[in-house]
């Protein structure tokens, strides 16, 4: 049994030290995904906290045939997608693109955030997972419960939109 799965077994037995190690292993990567999807640091930290809370409370339901990373990313993307729905509703248009973050030290990053906001929601999720952790098509398919071909077409579509937006701004 690898270290991740051993940790999950201990978390299910309410071992707080094992849970802390799991958070240290994955917290940064989960936060990077949430930060780019939700655009604000506060929403991202809240989403990661809720995802880890679900992980802790539901650890007994973890099935070892899933890689722990797959399971955690599944929980996190479920939380983030639901938060994106709430953000869209607060803006009053269910499928409107999210606004770019109000502040960012790097102007290039701000343009990138704006371009990323134009990508459809589910393609954004896949792009974030792909580039934060270098996940392969098969892992991405497993995390979002879709076919490998759909992963490929969604990623290609997302990248096409990004490339067009960044080309227009002269950033590529």
């Amino acid at each position: 049994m690898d270290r991740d799965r051993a940790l999950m077994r201990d978390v299910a037995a309410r071992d707080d030290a094992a849970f802390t190690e799991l958070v240290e292993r994955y917290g940064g990567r989960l936060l990077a995904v949430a930060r780019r999807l939700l655009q604000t640091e506060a929403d991202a930290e809240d989403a990661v906290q809720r995802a880890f809370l679900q992980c802790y409370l539901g650890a007994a339901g973890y099935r070892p045939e899933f890689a722990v990373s797959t399971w955690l990313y599944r929980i996190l993307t479920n939380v983030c997608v639901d938060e994106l729905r709430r953000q869209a509703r607060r803006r009053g248009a269910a499928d409107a693109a999210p606004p770019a973050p109000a502040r960012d030290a790097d102007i290039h990053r701000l343009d990138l955030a704006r371009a990323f906001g134009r990508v459809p929601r589910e393609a954004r999720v896949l792009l974030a997972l792909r580039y934060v952790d270098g996940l392969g098509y098969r892992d991405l398919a497993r995390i979002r419960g879709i076919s490998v071909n759909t992963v490929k077409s969604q990623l290609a579509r997302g990248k096409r939109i990004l490339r067009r937006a960044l080309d227009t701004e002269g950033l590529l």
Partner: protein
Amino acid sequence: MTRDRLDLVLEAYFRPTPAPAGLAARVLAAAREVERVGLPFGGRLAIRASARGIVGIAPGGRSEASSAAARRLAARARTELAEYLAGRRTFFSVPVDLTSLPAFQRRVLQAAREIPFGEARPYAWVAHRIGRPRAVRAVGTALARNPVPLVIPCHRVVRSDGTPGEYALGAAMKRRLHALEEATPRLEGCTSTRIVCRVGCAHGRRMRPANRIVFASVGDARALGYRACRICRPAAAA
């Protein structure tokens, strides 16, 4: 796959940073709080039912059902209420029986039932809805006497300034129900059937937790190859 300039830009953009300090401790504290507080009403509600539908719901007390059909409806309501309070249901399909109520109160409660899950409307909206725009106070009284709270969501009726206002089961419980509905996802897909349902659908209840995917809209789910459930019809409900 060859990496191009866009790949490099995206790798830099998505580069992870270390987990924030104290994250695990905050999650553990939140988990203790969830376990300490438990479900609203302790998950225990008394249900009264007739053969036509649910007649009354109240915290504590004894459940009553006068016939086998009434007992079946009460059991169904109990299951649906438990799922709702646990954040696994966004609608009720069990019928209610309001026949013993005055006509005005029935109309008020029917209007309250039209308020979508997770949303709120002012008392004046209900008054307009039933064609009695000046009867705002009477609407408040009728809602306060709602015999089937939760199933008829009188907690979604709020003051015109957006504050929760009064609630027969307490203002704190009203806020808690709003928070519960805000935090409950609306749509879930099953990875094995590739069907997307409203949360609480009979199809979704058979879904294993490991197969559950949350979607923000039916359009998103369709774009990923999921089809809308024919039982709960999520597109019509959205």
